[in-house]
C-alpha cells in the first residue's frame, strides 16, 4: 500500500508563540533571539520584509530594529516547549503515529487516510491547531518523508495554496518537481548542491531521475536514498520513539567577552551543573568531558584562539560536583591569558545508562551518597526554580557577568502561576 506522511510545522514558531499572548504583536515585525541574545533565530514575515536575516547577530541589527519598530524577544523556551506539547497533542488526535522531529516540526502518518480526503484532513488539522493553540502552521503531504518535507516547503512559500500542499496527488507532484530547485530538498547542503549542479541537476525532477547507483557513488548511501525517496519509495520510516541520547552538549555564547581565568572557570562549572541536570533526568552518565572555549570571529583585529581538551573521569558519573570539578580542571589545564573569549561549552559523547555502567576498580566514586545529594539538589531546583541550589564554583546566577539576564524575555505565560497573562476586566 502506498504510504502517506504529513509534515506540519509552525510558521515562525517562536514568534507565533509570543503573538498568542500579546494582541499588540499581530501585524508588527517580531524576532526572537538565541540563547544569551546572540542572534536572530525566528522572524515573522514582517521582520523578514525589513531585511532581518536568519542568524543575524543582535549587535548588528539592534539599530535597524529600533528604527523599524521591530519587537525583539529573548528566547523563552519554557513557553515554546509548552506550546509545542499542545500542538503535538492536537496532532495525536489526527494520527495515531507521529514523530516529533523538532520543537516546531512533526511528521504524521496519514497512510490510512484515503487520498481524496488527505487535503481536507490537513486543512482541518491546520484549523484546529490554530483555533486551539493560536499557532499558525503549514502542512506538506508526500508518500515519503523527503517529499512531505518538500511539500511543506511549497506550502510555506506559496501562500495561495492555503497552507497545505499534497504531493501524493500525481498532478501536484508533476507540477512542482520541475519547478523547485534541488537546494530545497531536505538534507541537501551547500556541498551536495554543488555536486548535484555539476551533474546538471536544475530541479527536484532532475535529482529524482539520477541513476541511484551514480547517486551512491557521488553522495554515498544518503544520495541513493534521496533518489528513491523523491521517487516515492520510502527509505525512512517515522521514529515514533525518541532514541536514547548518545551525546549531550551545553554551550553558550557569553554576553560579554571573558578575559580572566576565574570567570571562565565559573562559566564552565555552571555548564557542568546544567549538564549533570540533563544527564540525571535520563539516568545517563559520562566518563569523559570535552571542554572548549574560543574567541570570536567578530573580533578580527584581536588575537584568535580556539582550544578544547578532554577530561577523563575514573568512572561514569552524572554528579554535578564531579562534573564541575572536571570542567574547571580542564579550563586550568589549557587556559592562556591575553585573549577575549566569546563562547565556551562542554560536550559529551558515548553516554551510558548509569545503573549498568562499569565501575572503576580504583578511584571509584561514592555513587550512593552522591545520588542522594543530587536527588535533593534536583528537588530543590524543581521546587524553588532552576539555580536555587548551585555548586559554589558556578556562582549565583544573578552575579554571573558572562550570562544574559534574558532581559527581553516575555513572561513564562503557561508554566508559572505568577507570570500568567493578565487580561483586563475594566
Amino acid at each position, binding site marked *: 500500500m502506498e504510504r502517506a506522511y504529513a509534515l506540519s510545522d509552525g510558521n515562525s514558531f517562536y514568534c507565533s508563540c509570543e503573538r498568542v499572548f500579546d*494582541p499588540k504583536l499581530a501585524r508588527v515585525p517580531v524576532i526572537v533571539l538565541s540563547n544569551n541574545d546572540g542572534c536572530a533565530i525566528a522572524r515573522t514575515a514582517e521582520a523578514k520584509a525589513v531585511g532581518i536575516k536568519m542568524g543575524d547577530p543582535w549587535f548588528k541589527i539592534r539599530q535597524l530594529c529600533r528604527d523599524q519598530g521591530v519587537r525583539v524577544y529573548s528566547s523563552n523556551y519554557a513557553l515554546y516547549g509548552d506550546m509545542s506539547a499542545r500542538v503535538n*497533542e492536537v496532532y495525536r488526535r489526527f494520527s495515531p503515529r507521529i514523530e516529533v522531529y523538532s520543537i516546531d516540526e512533526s511528521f504524521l502518518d496519514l497512510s490510512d487516510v484515503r487520498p481524496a480526503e488527505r487535503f481536507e484532513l490537513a486543512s482541518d488539522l491546520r484549523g484546529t491547531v490554530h483555533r486551539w493553540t493560536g499557532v499558525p502552521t503549514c502542512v506538506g503531504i508526500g508518500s515519503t518523508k523527503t517529499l512531505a518535507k518538500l511539500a511543506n516547503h511549497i506550502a510555506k512559500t506559496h501562500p495561495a495554496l492555503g497552507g497545505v500542499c499534497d504531493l501524493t496527488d500525481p498532478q501536484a507532484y508533476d507540477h512542482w518537481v520541475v519547478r523547485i530547485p534541488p537546494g530545497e530538498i531536505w538534507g541537501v547542503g551547500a556541498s551536495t548542491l554543488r555536486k548535484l549542479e555539476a551533474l546538471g541537476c536544475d530541479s527536484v525532477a532532475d535529482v529524482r531521475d539520477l541513476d541511484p547507483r551514480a547517486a551512491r557513488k557521488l553522495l554515498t548511501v544518503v544520495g541513493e536514498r534521496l533518489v528513491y525517496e523523491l521517487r516515492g519509495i520510502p527509505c525512512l520510516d517515522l521514529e515514533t520513539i525518541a532514541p536514547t541520547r548518545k551525546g549531550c552538549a551545553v554551550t553558550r555564547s557569553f554576553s560579554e567577552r571573558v578575559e580572566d581565568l576565574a570567570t571562565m572557570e565559573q562559566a564552565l562549572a555552571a555548564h557542568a551543573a546544567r549538564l549533570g541536570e540533563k544527564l540525571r533526568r535520563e539516568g545517563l552518565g559520562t566518563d569523559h568531558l570535552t571542554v572548549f572555549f574560543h574567541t570570536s570571529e567578530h573580533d578580527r583585529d584581536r588575537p584568535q584562539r580556539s582550544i578544547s581538551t578532554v577530561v577523563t573521569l575514573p568512572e561514569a558519573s552524572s554528579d554535578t560536583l564531579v562534573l564541575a570539578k572536571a570542567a574547571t580542571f580542564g579550563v586550568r589545564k589549557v587556559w592562556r591569558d591575553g585573549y577575549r573569549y566569546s563562547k565556551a561549552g562542554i560536550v559529551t559523547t558515548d553516554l551510558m545508562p548509569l545503573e549498568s555502567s562499569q565501575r572503576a576498580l580504583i578511584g571509584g566514586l561514592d555513587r550512593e551518597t552522591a545520588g542522594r545529594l543530587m536527588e535533593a539538589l534536583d528537588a530543590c531546583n524543581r521546587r524553588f526554580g532552576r539555580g536555587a541550589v548551585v555548586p559554589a564554583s558556578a556562582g549565583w546566577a544573578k552575579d554571573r557577568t558572562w550570562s544574559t539576564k534574558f532581559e527581553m524575555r516575555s513572561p513564562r505565560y503557561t508554566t508559572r502561576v505568577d507570570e500568567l*497573562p493578565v487580561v483586563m476586566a*475594566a
Partner: protein
Amino acid sequence: MLAAAITYSSPAALPMLARPVRAGFPSPADDFIEQAIDLQSLLIANRAATFLVRVAGDSMLLAQLFDGDIAIVDRSLSPTDGDVVVVDVDGERSFKVWSRRGHRVRLAFANPRFPEFELSPDAVVEVWGVVSGSVSPRRRSARRA
C-alpha cells in the same frame, strides 16, 4: 487512598515480600479504595486548548469573575449567548459577556456600575477564548499581592 499510599509506597523496607504484611486488623476501607478527585480534570476538559489568565478589574463582577481570580479559558469552545469570553477588540484584550443579535455580535460588561459597552460598527472583534471556569481564592492572603 491513604491506606494504599502508606502500604505500597515503602516496598524497599521489605524487599523479599511481594505484598507487605501488616500487624493488626486490615482496614475495612481496603475494598473501597478509589481514585482521589482530580481537580485538574474537573476544571480542564481540553488541555491542549486551555490557558489560564489573571483577571484584572471589576467589570465581570456579576459574571462571578473577580479581580485577581484565575480564569480558565478554553479556546476550542465556540461562544454562545451569555458566555464570558476573552476578546480582542481592535487589538485590546479584555473580558466581555458575549451574545448575538441576528448577525451582530454584542459585547457587554457584567457590572451595573460600568457604562454600556459601545462596539463601533467597524471594530475588529476576535474572540480569543471562552471562559469555562475560574479559580477564586477566598482568603486575602492567597490572592495576588
